[in-house]
């Protein structure tokens, strides 16, 4: 048994960490979110060169054919830097859906474009993952799709969307279709573009092999990747808090020497530490233990969410008034 990362995986992690820390700054995040730009285009093209978008895509379609475990390691670094580019839908869920449910011609059409960074694909699975609200049901008839797909992920600059209905069918529609209206919403997290898609007889191409089970697997993958991003973000928030507590002085002492502050930092570290194993295990289960994926992904996502919320709150508190300002950027 070996519950650790390999040399090669450490290298992948290290190289993405270095790149993100060089390319992403509070300024670049701010610039993207304030300009309502869908994503940071310079970062996107640099990441295309590093192969970020094709991590999971098999080599014959131009990707690097890695497993979800490696993708989770990269996602942790992406979360640590808060990189303002689409990832979970366009680089994880869309390729996985196409690879498991698409036809050969669909794979040939889309996968190389995703891998090279030329195509971004949004994914709408909230009918399955979260349920429908009101009149949102989708209807497919005569090769046309109508209805509403809410909370579509990674819409920033998307050229196409993969949409799931409640019965477990998947359709791919192109962003330029005349019947497609996009309602953009400002999300709390300005680095994630979320939209509702309103479809009126939009040309839709089914992914023929789709089943509810396959879609559920991909939703699990999405949950695992989001948990990994939260893990990275939590670590970054702890690091910032510890640095601040080691510099800021009150009563002639750095505040990190006060137990009240020290203990907040210790509590964050203690909560975060075990999460890495939880996230790793879920990603490993996706690659090797299919029967455990659904539960492991939910445990990882739900627990990581609670921990990150606690860390976000506590880290803000350690920063005092500064933490509450936009200047500090903790809310990203």
């Amino acid at each position, binding site marked *: *048994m070996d519950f650790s990362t390999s040399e090669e995986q450490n290298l992948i992690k290290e190289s993405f960490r270095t790149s993100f820390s060089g390319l992403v700054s509070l300024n670049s995040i701010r610039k993207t979110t304030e300009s309502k730009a869908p994503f940071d285009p310079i970062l996107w093209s640099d990441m295309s060169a590093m192969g970020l978008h094709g991590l999971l895509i098999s080599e014959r379609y131009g990707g690097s054919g890695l497993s979800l475990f490696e993708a989770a390691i990269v996602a942790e670094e992406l979360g640590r830097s808060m990189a303002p580019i689409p990832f979970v839908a366009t680089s994880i869920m869309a390729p996985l859906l196409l690879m498991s449910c698409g036809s050969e011609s669909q794979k040939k059409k889309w996968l190389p474009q995703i891998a090279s960074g030329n195509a971004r694909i949004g994914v709408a699975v909230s009918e399955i993952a979260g349920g429908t609200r009101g009149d949102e049901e989708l209807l497919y008839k005569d090769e046309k799709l109508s209805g509403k797909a809410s909370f579509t992920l990674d819409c920033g600059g998307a050229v196409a969307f993969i949409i799931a209905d409640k019965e477990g069918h998947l359709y791919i529609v192109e962003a330029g279709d005349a019947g497609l209206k996009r309602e953009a919403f400002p999300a709390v997290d300005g680095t994630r573009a979320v939209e509702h898609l309103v479809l009126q007889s939009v040309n839709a191409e089914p992914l023929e092999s789709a089943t509810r089970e396959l879609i559920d697997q991909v939703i699990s993958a999405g949950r695992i990747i989001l948990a990994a991003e939260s893990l990275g973000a939590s670590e970054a928030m702890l690091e910032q808090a510890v640095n601040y507590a080691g510099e800021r002085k009150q009563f002639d002492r750095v505040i990190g*020497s006060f137990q009240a502050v020290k203990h907040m*930092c210790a509590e964050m*570290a203690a909560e975060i*530490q075990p999460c890495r*194993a939880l996230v790793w295990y879920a990603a490993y289960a996706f690659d090797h233990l299919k029967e455990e994926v659904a539960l492991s992904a939910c*445990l*990882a996502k*739900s627990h990581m969410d609670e921990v990150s919320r606690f860390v976000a709150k506590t880290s803000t508190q350690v920063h005092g008034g500064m933490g509450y300002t936009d200047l500090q950027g903790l809310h990203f």
Partner: protein
Amino acid sequence: MDLNDQEEHKTFREEVRSFLKEFRHLAPKETAMSYRLSPKPYSQEVKDWQALLVEKGYACRTVPKAYGGCGADQDILKNQIIADEFFKKDIPQGLIGQGISMFIPTLLEHGSDDQKEKWVKPTINGEIIWCQGYSEPNSGSDLASLQTSAVEDGDDFIINGQKIWTSSAHIAPMIFCLVRTEPESSKYKGISYLIFPMNTAGIEIRPLQTMTGHPSFNEVFFIDVRVPKSSVVGGRGNGWKVANSTLKHERGMLSNANGSLDRLNRIKTLLLHEKIDGIPLIKKPVIRDGFIRLQARVQSMRLHEMRLASEASKGAGPGLGHMICKLMGCELNHELDAFAIDVFGEMGVLHDGVPSMQSDGIWQQLYMYDLGLIIGGGTAQIQKNIIAERGLGLPREPLAVKGAL
């Protein structure tokens, strides 16, 4: 990342399985927990089982052959396999306790050959129980301020003072004890680590009733207790270093995630079988939600320990990951107990042995016992200091200036 056993470990797992199959009929019915809640000398059945496990290398496996162990190489993954397989079959593992889990590793690290020769074998076989003379009424978290004195007199020390929270002192034939041998030295340098019999003249033991209703620990008074100088472990004045080695082993013992998993599994059984208005408790959304949240935390601690074990087997030293285990493990156990009591509903108010749930009547006691463990072995707050100072590099609290306030 590869969670399959490699060849050597596959074989080892098979060995453990066939051992359990062949010998499980000899396993004692009494659980280790019953000994911990209410300490008493081990029964012959328990001792025989322990001796068998030691002989076969499933308990105290790294203790050298010369001292009665099986001299296996340190292999954390094999320890994990033993724990997993015993746990799956609900068969009691090797004994844990202050002697076996804390004193023996310390003695092997710091003791003389004679001391190892004399004490290791009977201790690991469960023949000799030890108690730990550390805390004093005025020296708890600030343990190094301890005042029990040992004054030189020929070849002996004469000990005077008082210890408190001394678990099992009322049943243990031996004690390992911190005393001040060099009062003129600095706080940390004047301490020695002594071992001596509890029936030495001048020792008085007063059991302390605890909130669990069991006298699990004691006050121990020393009045002119004469102990030979040869009782020192690890050198005179070196006791603080030796004591810290013991504390490290204690924290490891208190935070084993299998203990949390065991509690979780028992709760699951309870939720499946116990019904209110004819509906099993597990069907109630509020209870399910609470259960799943705990399940995630137990899972994360178990996997975390696996990760630490893997990294240690590759040569990584202990770090931040280890420092959080005592804090998180003890808090988690206590929350599991609290959850079990909550799902009992009105029955949760009953103290001992809930009538319709005999096997689970232990929760109310565990709740109190586990609260004690959050305090013992270095309080949660001391653990947080350690995490913040040694793990995260935050500065120490400045020392108070005498007379400043």
